[in-house]
């Protein structure tokens, strides 16, 4: 519309040939300028839970992380090598979409982002079910898509994509690292119980943990195997079942409100004193629960995130940026969002350089990100699996301790695991790798 209204006065103005030529030149210049301006923006669709049960723990912190980071990108305020304003000089625009509503709705929303909003890239999806649903759609449309959070290993193990990427490790890493931590710390494990949500994430986590324990603690016996529904809220019966047949270790991949409710209800009943609780993704509940988080709980964050993140200038900058904006330190969800956007920025700039400085196409973006490596606040991200479409990264596991002086839960006894120790090699599925006893694992502590 703006371009059309700009042309009309130009055409009708000149009465002499010279005036017409001049006017035509002006019009062309105007049109070119408009075109150049259009090229100077890069539109990113960001999809995450803005409502529902996953919003508080994952969706909103991740979107908050995206907002401050993208703002810093536009100002050119990020540290090198991320210090070019926008993406290679192109100003960033964002569209935020709520992931709530189920996979069918997300497929339609993804189509809308590409077809109506004309986004240049989509970064999104917490739910493994949503990831499994949208990935083939992006591939069919030949549009660039980054999955930033979901954990199921199946996406790139059961499929081959050209336009779809995941910039965080899949969930097998978390449970292998937990089992390795128990081994590294010489924790006695003759028996273990499990409580995981009854859907893809919980089932996969349980399977990976049992597999890893069978290899690292072959004499340990699995006891209670509880599968409450997602969003159960009431865990009194499950806690009784866990206390009826106490085990040395109790494993859980619960997260968000479910994990908070489980801790609030099992803490006063003494479950955490009777068994060593290990949580595969528990870091994000620490700021909220505070002193209600039982001491000595072993937990991971699905990466070296938050209080377990490594010291680096990039991490210091990111931590301060987030903490100043939201008055709370960043936990796993914003870290994963940020590592995806940092990767997208470098991939875009790499593709622009190969494209003579012009905005890259979806194909060029995909070619640039395939197999790429980059530094993130949580360490190096390597697109090593799934033909260069699936990331691996270092992770860390630690133990909780309430610090009354600082009035926050501290994490101590941190053990770091290199990416190659807790992720399968490129030619193996996670489940097969665990069953085979982690062949090719490198650098394990």
């Amino acid at each position, binding site marked *: 519309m703006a371009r059309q209204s700009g042309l009309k006065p130009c055409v009708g103005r000149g009465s002499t040939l010279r005036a017409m030529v001049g006017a035509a030149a002006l019009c062309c210049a105007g049109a070119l300028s408009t075109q150049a301006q259009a090229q100077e923006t890069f539109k990113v669709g960001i999809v995450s839970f803005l*409502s*529902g*049960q*996953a*919003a*508080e723990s994952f969706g*909103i912190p991740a979107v908050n992380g995206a907002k401050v980071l993208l703002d810093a990108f536009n100002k050119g305020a990020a540290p090198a090598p991320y210090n070019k304003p926008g993406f290679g000089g192109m100003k960033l625009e964002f569209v935020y979409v709520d992931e709530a509503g189920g996979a069918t709705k997300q497929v339609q929303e993804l189509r809308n982002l590409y077809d109506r909003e004309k986004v240049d890239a989509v970064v999104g999806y917490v739910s493994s079910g949503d990831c499994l649903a949208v990935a083939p759609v992006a591939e069919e449309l030949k549009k660039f898509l980054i999955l930033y959070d979901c954990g199921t290993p199946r996406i790139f193990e059961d499929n081959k994509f050209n336009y779809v990427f995941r910039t965080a490790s899949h969930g097998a890493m978390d449970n292998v690292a937990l089992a390795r931590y128990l081994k590294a710390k010489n924790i006695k494990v003759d028996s273990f119980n499990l409580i995981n949500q*009854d859907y893809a994430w919980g089932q996969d986590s349980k399977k990976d943990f049992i597999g890893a324990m069978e290899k690292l603690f072959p004499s340990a016996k699995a006891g*209670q*195997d*509880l*599968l*409450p*529904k997602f*969003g*159960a*809220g*009431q865990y*009194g*019966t*499950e806690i*009784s*079942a866990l*206390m*009826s047949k106490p085990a040395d270790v109790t494993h859980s991949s619960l997260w*968000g*409100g479910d994990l*908070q*409710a489980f801790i*609030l*209800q099992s803490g*006063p*009943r*003494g479950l955490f004193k009777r068994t060593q609780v290990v949580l595969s993704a528990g870091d994000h509940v620490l700021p*909220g*629960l505070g002193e*209600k988080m039982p001491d000595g709980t072993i937990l991971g964050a699905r990466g070296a995130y938050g209080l377990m993140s490594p010291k680096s200038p990039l991490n210091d900058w990111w931590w301060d940026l987030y903490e100043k904006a939201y008055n709370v330190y960043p936990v796993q969800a914003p870290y994963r969002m940020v590592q995806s956007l940092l990767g997208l920025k470098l991939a875009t700039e790499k593709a622009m350089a190969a494209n003579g400085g012009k905005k890259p196409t979806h194909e060029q973006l995909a070619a640039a990100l395939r197999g790429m490596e980059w530094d993130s606040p949580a360490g190096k991200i390597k697109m090593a699996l799934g033909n260069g479409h699936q990331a691996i990264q270092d992770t860390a596991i630690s133990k909780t301790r309430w610090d009354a002086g600082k009035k926050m839960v501290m994490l101590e006894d941190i053990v770091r695991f290199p990416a190659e120790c807790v992720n399968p090699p490129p030619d193996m599925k996670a489940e097969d790798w665990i069953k085979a006893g982690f062949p090719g694992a490198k650098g394990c502590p």
Partner: protein
Amino acid sequence: MAATLTILIDGLTYASWLFIVALGLTLVFGVLKILNIAHGSFYALGAYMAATFVAWGASMQWAPAFSLVAMLLAAVAVAAIVAPLTERGLLRFFYGRDEVLLVLVTYALFLILEDVTKLIWGANPYFVSEPYAMFGNVDVGIQSYVGYDFALVGLAVVVGLAVWWGLNRTRQGKIVLAVIHSAEVASSMGVNVSRVYMLAFSVGIFLAALGGAFTAPMISVQPGVSVGVVIVSFAVVIIGGLGSIEGAAIGALIVGMARSLAVHLAPVAELFAIYVVMAIVLTFRPEGLFQRIQARKI
């Protein structure tokens, strides 16, 4: 023996929580003939309001026992403010219309209230777990239960008896029963049916909010708490018979015990157990356990 006792206690405590919420749902259906999908949203409002009131009481350094009063007042506030607004401002315009339309209206209300709670309280969780420790612990064999769970059983009994007594032993209750049997005849006898509808809806919403308020100390109050409870509550009232108080009590006990048995004996069937019981009941009693078969009006 110890295992049986554990299963019974777990089933009873779960049933108590469920009964308080389901009672409100069945009462609203019994009087207004509305299957209220938004019932869980009033539960969530009760939880949020309780979190606010308890936190405020703590900031004023009031005695810990005040938190119990604060939770009760939170439920009263939701019933006094939100229920009349909803019933008078929205639902009354749809009375007499198709029941499916009313289901859609309450579903729309559920979506609206989800966003309203987020607008008011934001997306961050609220923790008010202090009242949960107020009653100490009760040791039963190798189990250690939180006294608060048993207090909830007492609350459910008191609430159930109060509603039964109010309906069957008071003049106002008998008017409500008359409206349940026939709003048209009650109206011709001089009963202000609109007032009865508002009263019954408010009591139903009070019960939902009461359930939410007294659950708040056991959970993190955050977006999404409204969803799970309403699904299980529907199972309870369908088993018991829509509109029946006795049915809600027995339905809650059946659901609580079925879930407890499944978790302790066959955890893989936990999700399945409640709905298997519901299917069995509906096979033999399609109208639920306690609802009388009614002739269809032609």
